[in-house]
């Protein structure tokens, strides 16, 4: 039942900074009762242009309340320029991670913050997000711009991920084709951020893997994710050694003399290993070791 980090539980049970600042310098209200969650953020600026106080009121589930509480803690002491740079991933990371299907709670926090800053600058009344363009998901009223942004900033590749992050596509599903097009467009436009990691095995074992666990997971990931792809091109791979976070591999078959081996190493080998084993792994070829 409690699929939440300790920090989420703490911020839900003991929310910080609940309330509304009466003479706020910025107000941001997003979401609605219909959507199932809503957040009203107010902040006060101090002499040096730093946020001295921030308060929230939230309607929503535990992670919506925790995300709002975390946001108010995070932005206190920030200048508006600093606060502007806060992403939904920062909020999720501050909380020690959120379940995938709850990521939209962190996105709601980021949206309220942006709106409150726009409100301070006289660009918004604090309740309406002035977004140009089309509504893609009519069930949840999600705009194209919102979808593009969560896809870009969180490296999303699947429609279900988009739904988890901004609710788009979670209702009647008729916008799924449009969402897929947006995902494809963003992917074509440039490299996306490192995707949020789903490492059930690594998570089960806890953050600190022993070397033996790590090697075993690397072997499994090579077998499942990497080797089949290399074999399509007549290549193969061999795990030689693990030195801290350096994974030393030998490229075999066609891969051994391939012009794009370096690319293969990064994309096909290092990517999955980081995804399924550990973020800090660096893959190097054995020749480079010699």
């Amino acid at each position: 039942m409690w699929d939440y980090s300790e920090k989420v539980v703490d911020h839900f049970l003991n929310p910080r900074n609940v309330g509304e600042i009466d003479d706020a310098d910025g107000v941001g209200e997003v979401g609605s009762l219909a959507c199932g969650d809503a957040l009203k953020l107010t902040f006060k600026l101090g002499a040096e242009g730093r946020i001295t106080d921030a308060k929230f009121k939230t309607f929503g589930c535990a992670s919506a309340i925790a995300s709002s509480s975390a946001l108010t803690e995070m932005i206190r002491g920030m200048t508006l320029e600093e606060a502007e740079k806060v992403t939904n991933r920062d909020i999720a990371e501050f909380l020690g991670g959120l379940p995938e299907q709850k990521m939209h709670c962190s996105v709601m926090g980021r949206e309220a913050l942006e709106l409150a800053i726009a409100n301070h600058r006289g660009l918004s009344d604090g309740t309406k997000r002035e977004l140009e363009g089309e509504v893609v998901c009519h069930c949840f009223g999600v705009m194209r711009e919102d979808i593009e942004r969560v896809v870009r900033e969180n490296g999303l590749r699947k429609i279900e991920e988009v739904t988890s992050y901004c609710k788009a596509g979670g209702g009647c599903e008729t916008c799924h084709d449009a969402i897929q097009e947006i995902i494809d467009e963003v992917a074509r436009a440039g490299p996306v951020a490192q995707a949020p990691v789903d490492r059930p095995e690594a998570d089960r074992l806890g953050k600190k893997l022993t070397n033996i666990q790590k090697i075993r997971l690397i072997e499994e990931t090579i077998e499942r994710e990497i080797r089949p792809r290399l074999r399509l091109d007549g290549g193969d791979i061999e795990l030689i050694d693990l030195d801290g976070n350096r994974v030393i591999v030998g490229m075999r078959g066609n891969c051994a003399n391939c012009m794009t081996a370096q690319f293969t190493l990064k994309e096909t080998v290092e990517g999955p290993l980081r995804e399924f084993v550990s973020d800090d792994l660096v893959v190097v070829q054995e020749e480079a070791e010699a």
Partner: protein
Amino acid sequence: MNVYLDNNATTAVAPEVIDAMTPFFKDQWGNPSSMHRFGGAVAHHVQLARERIAALLGAQRGEIVFTSCGTESDNTALRGTLTRIPDKRHIITTKVEHPAVRTTCRWLRSQGYRLTELGVDAQGRLDLDELTDAISDDTAIVSVMWANNETGVVFPIDQIAGICKSRGVLFHCDAVQAVGKIQIDLSRTPIDLLAISGHKLHAPKGIGVLYVRRGTKLSPLMMGGHQERGRRAGTENVPYIVGLGRACELVAENMAEENRRVKAMRDRLERELLKRCSSAVVNGDVEHRLPNTSNISFEYVEGEAILLLMDQVGLAASSGSACTSGSLEPSHVLRAMGVPFTCVHGSIRFSLSRYNTEAEIDYVIEQIPRIIERLREISPYTESKPIADSVRSGSD
């Protein structure tokens, strides 16, 4: 104090049921199909359980087929009969069925069947004229639940069964929530197929029953041996069958008295919560409702948050909120009733059992208003300032 008010999800196994089951793990572990004394003694107890279940339902022994759960019973009822009437390609069900029926019917639609899902009104009631109109020469089966798991609303099954019989179409009833809480007499109500789940009536999980009226053509879902007269292959789950038999016996002995006591507690709980919490409404037809269920929407707060705070003080219930469903879609039952999103998200289902006590109800009545109040203090919405719809105002 820990108080379990989620009995529509599952129930505690009755101590009497555990006692009845134990010998069939320890000593009498034979296979009832075997031709020796180890099997023979056990087969007798399987038959005894079958008789007890049949007695509770007003059925005959041969009409009781043991399965692994309510879902298997529903699947067998629908898929097992449709294959026997291949020339009829229309199914009628409702918009508020349990996923065991709903998902199966939608899968059948993807396999080429025409599917009619009957709607319900704001109280969760069916329009029987709509059912009558929907039945055509092509209709193979009608599948309607006896009582709704989320709201407890009870459908007029006698009438529905009568309509189906008069039109010559099969009628399957998912009675998983009804058995043990409502008097059922299949010798009078012309139901062809009826699904039961053990763990909703104080037997363990992993045992179910499909009632198959004598003469109903049914293909097995599970193929293999000739158990259950060829209607469900697989070695009988003897201890659980015996347990379900005992559970049904307990129901038969105590149902009227227990229902009266449970209903009194449910009514007091509901009355006090509505009195002590503002902006709270009951979902569903309160006139035709299971005695143990109360579904209440607390406006301006969200269900998952309520449940987690309840859990902090030892209270267990469930919610129709989107956040507890694993998807963004809140309860399909409350949505079909047209309950506004604003109420669905804060809906909590309290479902009682014979094991709840008045002292427990006192504790719930004391705790829930505090929880609602605490969340409303955090919420940007209040009665005086209900809805500031922003860009993301969902469709309704």
